[in-house]
């Protein structure tokens, strides 16, 4: 355990005073706050230009109290849990609230200076005044399409430092007393390849906060400021109390699990990602000591992306209904060694943090294996965010660009097989339908299917990964792929087998077939050439020998497992019996 973690844990063990809450007023207040964040979220989604905000809902909105406690947050992406915290902390550190006035708004994105998680995520924070008194902050953060840097979209796994990833914005005032700082807006938007879009989206963000601020002001005024303050304290206390109850049920001790990043994008050896969870009374420490060194590329996870990853894990593992507010963060202590991929030193690049976040989430899930009751256990999943992108020149000289992230199998649970073909952990993005892909881009999708035999064998089988095969229709098509898990697959539980691995193949089933590494940049392919990616399957649960004959028969009938793989995993005797059922 790192020294700062030990200290933090000691501090945290001083349990807060118990508090009598007004249960009814608090529940009504929570609903009212969620109504405000929902209305902010709707406005943000409807008005924004960035595809990531509009279509993939890669944004979040929230309301903080005057001290910087998160009261309510609206988000569709777990990686955004607590993503607004860093910005608000930076604001309160840098600026004196006494100097803020109504109509001010602040902006930031930097992971090192302003609690960001990567540069395309820009946050705007707006203080909310009632009768001249600072009562709250409205905040939102959204993934902008481009913020400059070495590549379009600003994210390249190959970036060597944050200076290659785009414009860094420390926490800074963008509007003063209701007047937008046009010069600053101009500077920021000029640094984006899509500057008009930036200019508009930032104004949308300011407008969203104004709306949230107005509604908060109306609510607090209607309730009375004292009642509002009491309800805030109740809801924060209740949330932390609720999580503490869950933590108290866990056995004391330290429990570790290791997942692997098979390379860091710069040809490194496999990198261990180690999570150790230590329940101590009603507090919980999550430490990443033993995790490998920071990457030369952009796979590093800055502090707030790590926090979001851990918050996601805790919510998923201990209490999925837990409200996302500062109360939830209170019983948790998070630490990672300086200079590791989970706590990189400035100016390490971190644009492509998501893959690492997924692996870290997998490590935290793994560390909980020994301490959760069986009904909450899940074998490891495709803890990845495989990204493929294809681009080609248009006849008129422009550029087509198609990119998406691909799901995989999830881990088996004690009472059921894993889910096939889904996004796990910190993301949950829609695919691009094949018919939409082929309508918009000069590519053909030859196949979009489940990967047979990719589910880890077990009493309950892991879910299957996805196969996607794309054919280029033009010469000079440029392919980039960012994936992992070609050495280490998803581990099973209680004797369950490991799930299938990632593969990437050029021109499969032809005499030009070629196996590719799982991180490819700017590979040029010609007309008629194909690229096929397989994403990993999930791990199994329980010994394969305990799988029922009926389940094996069904898998064989459905072609989910091939006969040779079935015989290898379950034995020829069982296969005979299963085949007799068909």
């Amino acid at each position, binding site marked *: 355990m790192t020294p700062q973690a030990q200290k933090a844990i000691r501090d945290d063990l001083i349990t807060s005073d118990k508090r009598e*809450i007004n249960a009814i007023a608090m529940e009504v207040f929570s609903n009212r706050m969620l109504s405000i964040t929902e209305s902010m979220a709707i406005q943000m989604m409807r008005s924004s230009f960035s595809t990531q905000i509009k279509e993939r809902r890669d944004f979040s909105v929230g309301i903080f109290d005057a001290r910087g406690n998160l009261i309510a947050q609206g988000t569709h992406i777990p990686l955004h849990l607590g993503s607004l915290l860093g910005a608000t902390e930076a604001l309160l550190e840098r600026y004196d609230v006494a100097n803020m006035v109504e109509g001010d708004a602040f902006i930031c994105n930097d992971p090192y200076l302003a609690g960001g998680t990567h540069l395309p995520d820009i946050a705007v924070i707006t203080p909310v005044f009632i009768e001249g008194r600072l009562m709250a902050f409205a905040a939102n953060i959204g993934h902008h399409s481009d913020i400059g840097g070495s590549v379009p979209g600003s994210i390249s796994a190959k970036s060597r430092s944050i200076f290659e990833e785009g414009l860094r914005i420390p926490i800074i005032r963008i509007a003063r007393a209701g007047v937008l700082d046009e010069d600053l807006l101009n500077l920021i938007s000029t640094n984006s390849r899509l500057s008009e879009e930036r200019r508009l989206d930032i104004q949308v963000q300011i407008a969203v906060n104004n709306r949230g601020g107005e509604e908060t002001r109306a609510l607090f005024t209607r309730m009375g400021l004292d009642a509002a303050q009491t309800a805030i304290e109740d809801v924060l206390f*209740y949330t932390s109390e*609720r999580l503490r109850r869950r933590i108290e049920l866990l056995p004391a001790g330290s429990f570790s699990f290791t997942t692997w990043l098979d390379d860091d994008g710069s040809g490194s050896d496999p990198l261990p990602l180690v999570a150790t969870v230590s329940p101590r009374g009603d507090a919980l420490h999550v430490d990443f000591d033993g995790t490998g060194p920071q990457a030369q590329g952009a796979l590093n996870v800055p502090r707030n992306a790590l926090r979001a990853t851990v918050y996601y894990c805790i919510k998923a593992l201990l209490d999925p209904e837990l409200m996302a507010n500062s109360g939830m963060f209170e019983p948790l202590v998070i630490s990672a060694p300086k200079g590791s991929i989970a706590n990189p030193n400035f100016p390490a690049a971190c644009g492509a943090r998501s893959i690492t976040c997924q692996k870290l989430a997998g490590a935290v899930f793994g560390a909980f294996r020994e301490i959760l009751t069986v009904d909450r256990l899940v074998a490891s999943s495709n803890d990845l965010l495989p990204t493929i992108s294809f681009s080609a020149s248009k006849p008129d000289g422009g550029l087509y660009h198609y990119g998406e992230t691909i799901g995989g199998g999830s881990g088996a649970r004690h009472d059921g097989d894993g889910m096939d073909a889904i996004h*796990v952990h910190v993301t949950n993005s829609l695919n691009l339908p094949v018919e939409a892909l*082929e309508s918009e881009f000069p590519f053909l*999708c030859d196949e*979009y299917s489940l990967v047979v035999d990719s589910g880890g064998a077990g009493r309950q089988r892991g879910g299957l990964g996805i196969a996607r095969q794309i054919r280029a229709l033009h010469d000079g098509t440029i392919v980039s792929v960012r994936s992992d898990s070609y050495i280490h697959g998803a581990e099973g539980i209680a004797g369950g087998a490991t799930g299938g691995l990632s593969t990437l193949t050029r021109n499969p089933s032809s005499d030009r077939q070629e196996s590719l590494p799982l991180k490819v940049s700017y590979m040029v392919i010609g007309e008629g050439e194909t690229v096929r990616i397989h994403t990993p399957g999930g791990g199994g649960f329980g010994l394969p020998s305990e799988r029922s004959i009926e389940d094996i028969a069904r898998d064989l009938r459905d072609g989910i497992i091939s006969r040779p793989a079935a015989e290898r995993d379950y034995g020829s005797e069982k296969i005979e019996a299963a085949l007799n059922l068909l």
Partner: protein
Amino acid sequence: MYRIGVDVGGTFTDFTVTNTATGENRYFKLSSTPADPSVAIVDGIEQVLKTFDIAPADVSYIGHGTTVATNMIIERRGVPTALITTKGFRDVLAIGRQTRPALYDVSITKPDPLVERFRRREINERLNAKGETLKGLDKNELETVLDELSETGIKALSVCFLHSYRNAAHEEEAAQIIAAKLPGVYVSVSSRVLPEFREYERTSTTVLNAYVGPKMADYFDRLEEQLRERGIPVAPMTIHSNGGLLSIETAKRLPVTTCLSGPAAGVIGSAVVGAAAGVGKIVTYDVGGTSTDVSLIVDGRPKFTSSRDVAGYPVKLPMVDIHVIGAGGGSIAHVDDAGALKVGPRSAGALPGPIAYQRGGEEPTLTDANICLNRLNPVALLDGRMPIDRAAAVRAIEDRIGRPLSISGEEAAYGILQVAVANMSRAIRAVTTEQGHDIAEITLFAFGGAGPLHAAEVAREAGIRRILVPQEPGTMCARGALLLDVSLDFVRMQLVEATADGWQQACEALGEMLKEGNAWLEGEKVDADLREFHLAIDAHYAGQTHDIRIPLTGVDSDGLARFLADFAQAHKAGYGYDIPGQSVIIVSCRLQAVGRVPKAITATYSGGESVAAAKSGEREVYYGPQEGWCTTPIFRRSALPVGVDVAGPAIIDEMSSTTVVLAGQTAAIDAFGNIIITN
């Protein structure tokens, strides 16, 4: 003559009868018969005819909304179904959109596809996105596959090839071969069910259609036959999720369109009743036993959507946009281990139901709270047919809610009500502000058994100033079935840039669709002078994916400039900006063919003599810690006079519902028989 509207719900089958000569409505309710829903419909109609002394030959119309298809999907009681699809794509149904159903809860898993993998078979054939043939349909392979599938005992078969929305030739070719080879099998073809792009949603919708097809056809046949046997001269109509009427013939071909038919009829009915009453902006608020349905109506037009799930399976057909939240009368209240009061999402449903109903319920529900507070009749409901055990409800709320929170029983019951109301208000605010409307301009249209009971509190919480409670709100969906037009939606994908050429293509498509729509209305036996056609184009800026629907007044080959201007304006209204110079993509052409059904709502409601005469008693009702218990007059709705104010607090009772009016609010019956409550 008499027109009969029917709504088949999970617990009750409701009836509304209109005398076309007088405009007078009668209402009736009996228990549903889930094993064969047509039994309750036919029994009910017999009883209705007897009770109201109507000759079968005098029935001029029967329209019914039904959840038969939905329940079949939820309970997975459809038939063994196969899927024929393009080589390489049999797992589209299993992959879906590659998302998981719950972000945090790993125990919630996506449902297994309705067609098992061994019955999902691939055939060599391929079109590109322009609809050009890259590879012809391999008929021999199809024949072999059909032989193999028929051995697996399939009763229905769906066909979905890539890009068939552009060119249906391969699907039609395959359909012919299937019809010849497997004559007894129900066939559902994607280009006929939903000729729109996005293969997962199209496949899912087509598969659902096949899955429920054979049993729905049996159900419709049985219903038609039994009504004929009883001397009713008209064939029953059914309702689709878009709130339009369909003949049984069309419904048998497209049964998946009936998935949301009951609630849709309720919303369309609300729109008609609301428009007659002169209300511009409405949020419908339909509270049932397990859920609350909320939807927005502006200027008599409900909002439509085409992305809904049924039991986790997407159905991408145009339907009334109804927002459903898991809070209803049966929602269970509990105090969690950290001391918060939660209401729902668990529900006691119809069984075991609320404690006070004495059907085995042990956990306090929202209905129990209303009984404790004396808002609901604490002795009996449904005109005295259902006895109530208030003491048991009070005891449970004191034990399970009051004690852990250190508050009194009535405070606990009031707390349950407040928490539920806050949750429902949130949904109402969301559907209102999502469309950019000001909540203060909204009228809350309350129906369902428990809508009027909570409407006053919900309106106050949400900032709504006006409430409309229609007659017999508990049977509003059945009444809605009397207020619908015949309609069907047609769509053709275009995906062309809105240039002169693209516009020409769109106009040609619309012209053909008009012919198609006319032919369909002809088949539905709609007279030419009652036919209407609503044309629209879905479009987006190049690079976007969210479509905006632009209504057209007609097919106008010179209309491009006007269309582009309308699009820019609509984009600005919806998103706050437009992008001059950016090219616009025409995604699809849409046509709704409508056959108008005569159904005027007249202001002929007569009402009772006086408020005093309508008063049936009074009881102590609890209104929160500040106001406490207040003596509240109880009125019989049918006896209240038109146009006379009743000051709150007051309770207005009728067979299917109870309306609460709070202090500071005023209720009055309007000329259509609605209760209007204002703050």
